[in-house]
C-alpha cells in the first residue's frame, strides 16, 4: 500500500531533495517506507547501474532454475516510480558526489542535487584472484546480466563448475543442473553452507543435491581456471592438481560491500560504509547507507531481513521523526532451491555453554537442532521441515526463557502451547 502521490501545492514550502544511489532492494525499500510515513517531504531521484527497475535479487535463482522469468521478479515497475513522482535513472552508475555542493553525477553526466543522499550500492561478487579468472566463460552471479549469461552458457555448453558452496553457489549450481549442465561445486569449507548449516544438516543437503546429480569437491582450493585454444575456460584446476572440466565457471565465493563510490567521496569505510544506529554515515550525516554496502556495528548483512529493518529505521530518520534506532539484526537464512527446505538462525553451531536439542527423521530427511543457553533459545538449524523456523526466530530474537516448553520445543512452539493447555 502506497500513499497516493499528491500534487505539490503552491502554498507548501519547497520540497527537499532525496537522491538514492542504488535501485536495488535496500534503496527502494527505504523509499517505500519513507513514502508511507512522509509522502510529501522529498523530491526523490533514483540512480540505478543496471538497466532494470527494482527487482527481487534473491529471486534470480528461480529465474536461473527456469521456474520464474525476469518479469516475474520485478518489484517496482517503471510506472510505479512515475506514479510516485520519482525520477528514475536506469543504467546510470553514479561516478561522483560533490559533498560540499551536494550534487550527484552519473557516468553519463546526469546530475542531481540533494539535501539527503542514500547510498544503497549493494555488494560486489568476490572474484578469486587465480590465474584465468578473467577467461571467457568465467562469470559471477549477482544480477540479471550474470543470470542471463549463465542461461545462455547452459544452452551451448555442458560442464559447469561453481566455486563456492554457499547459498548463492548452490542456487547457481542447482539452476545450471536443472538447465542440463553437469555441475560440480568446488568448496573451500569442510561442508556445504558452513555459515548456515552444521555438518550433519549439510550432509543431508549434500545427499539431496547429490541425488539431483550435483557433484561436490569439498575442502577444495581452486588454483586456476585453465583455458582452451580459443581462450575460453576449459577446466578448473585444484591445488592438488585435480582438473575438473568446465565450460562455465561461476564464481560464487562470497561478496564484498560495494564501497568504491563511498571510498572515492571520502566516507569512512571498513568492509562497508560505517553507519550509526540511524543509518547515517559516520563521516557525513547528510548521507545515509543501507543494505549490503553498509557496516553497522561491525556487521555487513547480506540478507534481506536486516536490510528491511534498516530501511524502516532509515526512512523514519529521513522523515525527520528521529525516533527509530537500528541495533542490529538476528539473521536467518533459506536456500532457494525448490524442494529443499533449510533454515538457520543464531548460534546454531552451539558455542561453549550451550545445550543442543536434536531431532532427526532420516525417513523424511528432517533435521532440527535447537541451541539453548541459560534457558533461552539462541540458535536453530532446521533442515527438511522449516515450518517452525520463523517461530524459533522470534524466540531467538526475544531472548525469552523456553525452559517451560523445552521438552516440546522441537515439535514446534504450537506443540508446546497445546501441551500446556
Amino acid at each position: 500500500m502506497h500513499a497516493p502521490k499528491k500534487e505539490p501545492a503552491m502554498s507548501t514550502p519547497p520540497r527537499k531533495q532525496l537522491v538514492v544511489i542504488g535501485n536495488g532492494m535496500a534503496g527502494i525499500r527505504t523509499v517505500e517506507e519513507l513514502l508511507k510515513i512522509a509522502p510529501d517531504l522529498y523530491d526523490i531521484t533514483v540512480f540505478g547501474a543496471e538497466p532494470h527497475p527494482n527487482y527481487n535479487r534473491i529471486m534470480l535463482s528461480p529465474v536461473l532454475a527456469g521456474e520464474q522469468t525476469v518479469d516475474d521478479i520485478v518489484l517496482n515497475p517503471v510506472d510505479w516510480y512515475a506514479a510516485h513522482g520519482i525520477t528514475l535513472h536506469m543504467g546510470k552508475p553514479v561516478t561522483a558526489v560533490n559533498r560540499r555542493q551536494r550534487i550527484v553525477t552519473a557516468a553519463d553526466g546526469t546530475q542531481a542535487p540533494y539535501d539527503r543522499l542514500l547510498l544503497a550500492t549493494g555488494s560486489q561478487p568476490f572474484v578469486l584472484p587465480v590465474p584465468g579468472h578473467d577467461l571467457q566463460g568465467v562469470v559471477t552471479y549477482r544480477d540479471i546480466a550474470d543470470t542471463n549469461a549463465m542461461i545462455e552458457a547452459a544452452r551451448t555448453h555442458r560442464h559447469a563448475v561453481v566455486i563456492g558452496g554457499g547459498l548463492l553457489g548452490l542456487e547457481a549450481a542447482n539452476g545450471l543442473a536443472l538447465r542440463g549442465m553437469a555441475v560440480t561445486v568446488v568448496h573451500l569449507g569442510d561442508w556445504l553452507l558452513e555459515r548456515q548449516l552444521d555438518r550433519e544438516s549439510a550432509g543431508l543437503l549434500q545427499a539431496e543435491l547429490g541425488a539431483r546429480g550435483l557433484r561436490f569437491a569439498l575442502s577444495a582450493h581452486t588454483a586456476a581456471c585453465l583455458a582452451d585454444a580459443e581462450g575460453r575456460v576449459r577446466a578448473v584446476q585444484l591445488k592438488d592438481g585435480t582438473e575438473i572440466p568446465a565450460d562455465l565457471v561461476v564464481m560464487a565465493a562470497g561478496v564484498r560491500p560495494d564501497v568504491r563510490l563511498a571510498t572515492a567521496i571520502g566516507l569512512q569505510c571498513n568492509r562497508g560504509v560505517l553507519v550509526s544506529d540511524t543509518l547515517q554515515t559516520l563521516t557525513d550525516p547528510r548521507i545515509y547507507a543501507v543494505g549490503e554496502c553498509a557496516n553497522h556495528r561491525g556487521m555487513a548483512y547480506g540478507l534481506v531481513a536486516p536490510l528491511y529493518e534498516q530501511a524502516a529505521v532509515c526512512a523514519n530518520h529521513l522523515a525527520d521523526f528521529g525516533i527509530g534506532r537500528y541495533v542490529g539484526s538476528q539473521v536467518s537464512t533459506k536456500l532457494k532451491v525448490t524442494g529443499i527446505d533449510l533454515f538457520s538462525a543464531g548460534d546454531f553451531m552451539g558455542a561453549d555453554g550451550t545445550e543442543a536439542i536434536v531431532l532427526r527423521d532420516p525417513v523424511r530427511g528432517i533435521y532440527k537442532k535447537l541451541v539453548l543457553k541459560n534457558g533461552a533459545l539462541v540458535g536453530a538449524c532446521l533442515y527438511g521441515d522449516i515450518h517452525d523456523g520463523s517461530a524459533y526466530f522470534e524466540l531467538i530474537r526475544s531472548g525469552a526463557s523456553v525452559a517451560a516448553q523445552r521438552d516440546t520445543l522441537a515439535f514446534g512452539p504450537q506443540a508446546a502451547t497445546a501441551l500446556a493447555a
Partner: protein
Amino acid sequence: MSIPIHPVSQQTRSTCPYCGTGCGVLIGSVGGQIVSVQGDPEHPANFGRLCTKGSTLHLTAAASVTQQTRLLRPLHRAQRGGEAQPIAWDAAMAMAAERFADVIRRHGPQAVGFYGSGQLLTEDYYVLNKLVKGLVGTNNLDTNSRLCMSSAVAGYKATLGSDAPPACYEDFDHAETLFIVGANTAWAHPILFRRIEDARAARPSQKLIVADPRRTETADMADLYLPIRPGSDVALFHGLLHIMLAENLVDHGYIARHTQGFEALQAVVAAHTPAAVAETCGIPVADLLQAARWMGGHTPTLSLYCQGLNQSSRGTDKNAALINLHLATGQIGKPGAGPFSLTGQPNAMGGREVGGMANLLSAHRDLGNAQHREEVAALWGVPEVPAQPGLTAVEMFEAAARGELKALWIACTNPAQSMPDQATVRRALERAEFVVVQEAFATTATCDYADLLLPATTWGEKDGTVTNSERRISRVRPAVPPAGEARHDWAIFTELGRRLEALLPERVAAYRPGVGTLFPYAAPESVWLEHRESTRGRDLDITGLSYALLDTAGPQQWPLPEGGGSHGQQRLYADGRFPTADGRAKFAAVAFVPPKEAADAEYPFSLNTGRLRDQWHGMSRTGTLGRLFGHVSEPAVDVHPDDMQRLGLTDGDLVRVRSRRGEVLIPALTSGAQMPGQVHIAMHWGSEFLSGRDAGGERLQGVNALTQPAFCPTSKQPELKHAAVAIEPVALPWQLVAMAWLPAGKALVVREAVAALARDFAFFSCVPFGDEGSGDDGSADRQVGVLLRMASAKAPEAERIAPLIAQLEGWFGVQASDTLRYDDAARHQHRAMRVAGTGEGEGEGERLQAFLMVGQVASQAWVRPLLQERQPVQALGTRLLSPSAQPPGDVVSRGKQVCTCFNVSEPQIMAFLPQCSGTEGERLGQLQGALKCGTNCGSCVPALRKLIRETPMAIEAL
C-alpha cells in the same frame, strides 16, 4: 507374510504338561520337529479342548525357541558367577556322582538334598525317590509339590485316611451346589472351568458359591460371592457348619455310621456363630446363611479348592475343615458330591503316588510308619529306609543356608524363582558346596547358581505317565527326539544311581540277596512296572493297569486292581468306608488361627500371590511366547482404587512393595478384583522378568522376595498366599523404555542379554509380546516382540549412558539409518524410533519396528500400541518423537486384548455388544458368532461374560 503349511506326517497322543487338569493332546510333528498341537477328543479330561497355554504348546517347542532357551548340552561352571562351559555327559555324570559321594562320605547322607518337581513324570519320580531313600539313605527329597499340594495331601489324610481326591470331573455335571474356595478356576484350570460352564448351562438349578479374597473371574461367575478376609477360611467353614447344625442341614445318620470325632468338632464350631464368623470373614450374615443353606440343603454339593487353602500356615486345617462339611452332610462318595482338590501341577498326584516327598513313601505309605518303611525296603531290596524325616522344601533351603546341606540336586524346578523368602533361598544356593541343576531350560534363575547343568528332556520328548486331579493316569509319549544332548530325567537318575553304587560299595554290599543294583531300568515302562507292584493292596492299587491297557483303553483312574476290569474307579468312598484304622472318617476339630504375619502399621497391606490365565509357574516355557503376554503384558501389583488414591498413585506408577524379608519395585495397577488393604502380584514375576537393585545395591529377587517361609506345621507348605507388605511410591525419574519386533530366532536371546544388563539398575522388567501366528517355525520373517523398562533415581553418568544406549540400540535394532531420533543430552533425554515400510500393497506403509526412550517416557503410553498393533505411522511423521503423554492427532489403540486365540480386543467387543440382545448366554453366542472370540480355547469366556453383564443392550436391540 505367508505361512507354509507342513503336512503332519506324525501324530502322537500325549498329555499337556501344564496344570493338574491333565488334558490329552495330539502332537503333530514333521521330521523330528513339533509343528502342531490339538486337544485329544478322546481324552476324558478335556474331550478335545485346550486352554490358551495348552493350545500354544507346539509354539514353545518351535526350533527357534529351543535354540534360544533350551539347555542343550551339559555345562560346567568352574567358578560361581562365571560362564558355564560345555562338558561331556560322561564327565559331567562322573563329576556329579563323585561330588555327591564325597559329601556323603565326609558329612553323611543327611548333608545332601534333592529338590524335584510336580512336573516330573511318575517314572522320573520313582527312580529319584528310590535313589535318595534307598541308596543315598536320606529322606532329604522334596519337590515343588510342597509349595502346591501338600496341605491337600495332609488334609485328606487327616480326615479321610488317605491322599485321594474322592470325586471326578464328571461330578461337575451332577452337583446342585458348587463351592469354589481359594481357587481361581477360570484362570488356573480353564478347561475344568469350561466343563463347569457347560454344567451350569445344562443344569440351571445349579448354584455356584465362590469364596475368595479377590473378586476373580471365577468369583464374577458366582451366584453367591463371599469375599472373605485372607486366611479366614477355617472360620468360614466352621461358621457354615454351625448354621447347618442349627438348621438341621447335616446328615446325622452318615455321621453316626461313617465318622468319628464329631463331638469335639461340634464343641469348636459352637463358638462360630453367624455373627462372629461374618465379622471374622468380613461378609454379610445373610450371605453366610445362604451359603450354608445351598451347601447343606441344595445337594449334591461339590467343593473345588486349590492354593487358597493349601498355601497357608494353616493349610492342613483349612483342607480338613472344608472336608468336615462334606462328612457332616454326607456329601462324599456319590455323584456330584465331595471335597475335590484341584491339583496345581500336572503330576503332583503321581509324585505323591510314588512317595516322592520328604515325609512319604511309595504308594501312599508313610515314612513315620515302621511297617511301611519295611515294606518299601523289602520291595527295593535294601536293608532299610531311613526313619528320620527328610527336610521339606523350606526346611531344605534353610538348612542349606545355614551350611548344613553341602550338596543340592535340583531337577525340573526353579527354586530361585518359586520358593518364598528368596533371600534365604539364594543364600542357600550360594552357600552349598555343589549345586546340580537338571533342567530343560537354560533361562531359569536357578541355572545361574549351578555348578553343573544337566540338560533334561521336556514335553514332546518325554515318555512315561502322569496322574491328574481326578486320579487319572495318562501316558506321556514322545513326539520328537530329545533336543540337543538332553536326556530323560529317569535316565539321568538311573545313571547317577549306578555311579553312586560304584562309589559307595558298602551300600551295595548291604542290599538284600539277589539285588545287584537298585537301577536295572532300560525304559520307563520297567520303572513303572516296579511302581505298579508297590501299589499292590494299597488304596491306589493299579496292579490291573498296564502301559498296554493305557494304549488300548485310554487314561484310567486309580484304583484299578488286578482283576478289576479294564476301567478304573470313578469315585471313592461310595460305601462310606475310609482307609483308616477303623474305617471311619475323622472330623478335624481344628481351631481357627489367623495368618502368620498380620498386617500392621508398618506393613499395612496383605499381599496375595497367584496365577495368571496365560502363564505357567516361572514362565520358563510360557515366557517364550509373546502371545501369552497379550492377556497380562507386564508385571504389576494390583491395588484397590481407594488404596491407589490414598497412596497418590496412577496406573503404571512404580511402587516399592516391601516385606520384612525383601522388596520389589513394580508398577501399580488399579484393580477391581482387590479389596481395600489387599494387593496381589502374580506368582510368575521372578527375577528373570522383574528385578533391579535396592538402595544397598542388592539384586531384587522378584515377587518371592516378599513372601514368607512360615509354613503349615503339618503339611510344611509355606504361606505364599499372605505376607504383610508396605507399599510406597518411588521416584525414579530416570526412565528407559525399549520395545522392538525382533526376528523370532533372536528375540529370546536378546531378552536374556538385555535382562542381564538391565538388572543392574534400580528397576527392571523385560517381557516378550506379540502373536506367534499359527506357529509354523519355518517362516523366517516371523517376529517376536521384546519390551524393556528400566528406571533409576538419577541418570547414569555420561560415560555409562552412551555405551548403554548404544548397546540397547544394537540389541533392539534401533540404530539403522531409518531411525528417527530426539536427543536432549543435557536433559538426559533420548528417543529413537525405527520405522520400516512394509511395502506390501496399497494402504500399507511405515510401521514402527522398534523404539528406545530414555529420560522422558510418557509418550510410550500411545507409542507402544502403535508398535504392538503394527499401526501405520507415516501420518505422524516426527510427532512420533513427541514427549507428550497425549497422542498427537487421532492415534487410536486397539486396546486390551481379551481373546488370545483370535486376537480380539476389548474395544472391538464393546463396540459390538450393544447390538447383541437376549440373555447373557444369547448375547455371548452372538458375540462369538460375530467376532469368534472365546470360540477356540474358551479361556476368555468369563471375561466376555463380565463385559456382557457390564454393557447394556442398545435401546433398539431391546
